[in-house]
């Protein structure tokens, strides 16, 4: 899902925050890629059954159950080849800089069931990195074993194991940043966010055990460790954005979800805690993410669908090493980062969608770690219009899909400021938050 721009930006993240921000914003242009036609062929379902807008990534309650069941549901017509592909052409028009139109991404999905109890999702992504050059990397992985139709106290119970490479990607509600692919962009961020510099996303491997009890109560616990740098390199990642060495890492998730057919709501909490050495030979920081998420969906007769989600993640940091800035100023040994995301999506006829997001990234003041103002706060607004003409029961085809999307990114605050966000001295042209704005048009074809 992450565009080549963001990967390049990840490499540059700390020294050049402007490049990081622009690239991270453009990441969102390539997020809606979860409607996998291989799943439609496997289940006989339409894309719209699992994704309100027929292309994703937002899941309907039915899509959540499909994920919880380990991607193993089937129409019973035998083995289907679990392979799909996707191509994306993107026109990018940043507020400052040159507009471009390129074939930005080509994806290969290995996605589907192997047995009644084993299924998965693996994405191999080729991102444009320059003139006719592409970098191939292993993107999201979620391999599952699931035991279904168990009983506990007379109630339904589903148990599963997920082996995945991105904390939160495996979540069924799919509101957490690594699953929704919507996250605030700033000079810092939480571990659970894919937009954070040196984020664990795709660069770790972990296993979680989950349970769904009485169809409504969801619990999950697991652990992760970062991939060796050499492995990251082999998988297509630049080691400059290594998430560091992670120890004593725990992932915890608990949620209540209620599917009332015409409506759905969920309320959940999430935690991710780790000791991180970044760089790997350095001292260890203790980082703990504590978050909660609320979602609501009005589905009705599927003509008018409204989806709301709010995610609030607070990361508490206890730095392991003393850090000194200019003039010998000592940085605080503790700090916090606070990510908030509010998204509302309206979908008409499972075809036309309007999605509006407000993304806030704030943190404790730290003049050493967050130059030049010591303030990491950033605010981004994002508006997306898209059209996905296929993927419904009555579509010309239900096993391929097209999505045309227009997205506007508006940055109203960066480094805690609207104007001169990088503190340019007099005589140097300042950069304002609005200079980071961008507009994209994209055409995605999944088959």
């Amino acid at each position, binding site marked *: 899902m992450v565009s080549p721009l963001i990967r390049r930006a990840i490499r540059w993240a700390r020294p050049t925050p402007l490049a990081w921000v622009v690239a991270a914003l453009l990441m969102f242009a390539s997020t809606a890629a979860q409607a996998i036609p291989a799943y439609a062929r496997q289940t*006989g*379902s339409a894309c719209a059954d699992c994704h309100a807008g027929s292309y994703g990534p937002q899941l309907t309650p*039915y899509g959540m159950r499909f994920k919880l069941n380990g991607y193993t549901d089937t*129409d*019973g*017509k035998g083995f289907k080849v679990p392979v799909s592909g996707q191509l994306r052409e993107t026109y990018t028009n940043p507020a400052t800089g040159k507009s471009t139109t390129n074939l930005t991404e080509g994806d290969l999905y290995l996605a589907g069931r192997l047995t009644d109890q084993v299924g998965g999702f693996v994405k191999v992504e080729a991102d444009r990195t320059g003139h006719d050059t592409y970098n191939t990397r292993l993107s999201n992985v979620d391999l599952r074993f699931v035991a279904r139709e168990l009983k506990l106290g007379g109630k339904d119970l589903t148990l599963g194991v997920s082996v995945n490479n991105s904390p939160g990607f495996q979540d069924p509600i799919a509101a957490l940043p690594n699953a929704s692919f919507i996250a605030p962009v700033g000079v810092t961020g939480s571990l659970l966010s894919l937009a954070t510099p040196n984020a664990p996303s795709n660069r770790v491997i972990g296993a979680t055990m989950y349970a769904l009890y009485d169809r409504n109560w969801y619990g999950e616990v697991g652990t992760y460790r970062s991939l060796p740098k050499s492995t990251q390199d082999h998988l297509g990642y630049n080691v400059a954005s290594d998430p560091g060495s992670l120890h004593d890492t725990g992932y915890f998730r608990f949620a209540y979800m209620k599917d009332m*057919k015409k409506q759905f709501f969920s309320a959940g909490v999430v935690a991710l805690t780790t000791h991180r050495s970044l760089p790997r030979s350095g001292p260890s920081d203790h980082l703990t993410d504590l978050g909660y998420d609320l979602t609501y969906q009005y589905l009705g007769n599927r003509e008018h669908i409204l989806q709301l989600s709010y995610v609030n993640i607070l990361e508490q940091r206890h730095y392991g090493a003393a850090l000194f800035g200019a003039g010998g100023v000592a940085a605080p040994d503790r700090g916090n980062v606070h990510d908030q995301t509010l998204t509302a999506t309206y979908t008409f006829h499972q075809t036309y969608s309007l999605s509006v997001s407000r993304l806030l990234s704030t943190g404790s003041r730290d003049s050493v770690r967050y130059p030049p103002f010591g303030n990491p706060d950033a605010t981004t607004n994002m508006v997306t219009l898209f059209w996905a003409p296929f993927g419904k*029961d009555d579509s010309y085809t239900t096993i391929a899909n097209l999505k045309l999307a227009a997205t506007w990114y508006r940055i109203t605050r960066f480094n805690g400021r609207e104007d001169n966000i990088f503190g340019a001295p007099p005589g140097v042209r300042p950069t304002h938050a609005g200079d980071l704005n961008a507009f994209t048009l994209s055409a995605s074809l999944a088959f």
Partner: protein
Amino acid sequence: MLSPFPPASRSEARRSRLLHGVVLAGLLFGWYAASPAVRAGDASAGADVFKSECAECHAVKEGRNKKGPSLFGIVGRPSGSIADYSYSDALKQANWTWTADKLHWYLSQPAKTANPGTKMKYDGLTDAKQLDDLLSYLGNVH
């Protein structure tokens, strides 16, 4: 024919036959009106019920099986009769016909109660009007 009553006149016999006819017609109408096929008056509302209750697992397009079999022509169809759908053993052995009455009975309770061993996961539709509307809609899908 022996009778404890005195023989009726010809006009009384006509009135009696008429009365019997009215009663019989009334009974027939009552039975007919009470049957789900007629109670279900709003097929367009039933289409909405279908979309929210059934459409994730069933399509109404002929030959389009999802997790559940196509419901094209479901009313009047023998159970387990779509050749290229893999039914549960429980439904294969049910050997019933999906009349409107049978569907009303089946859908008004959990599927696993109505047909233990079925693959179908459905808790039942307890709203009587919605069920009637749904059956009316399904009756038109052919």
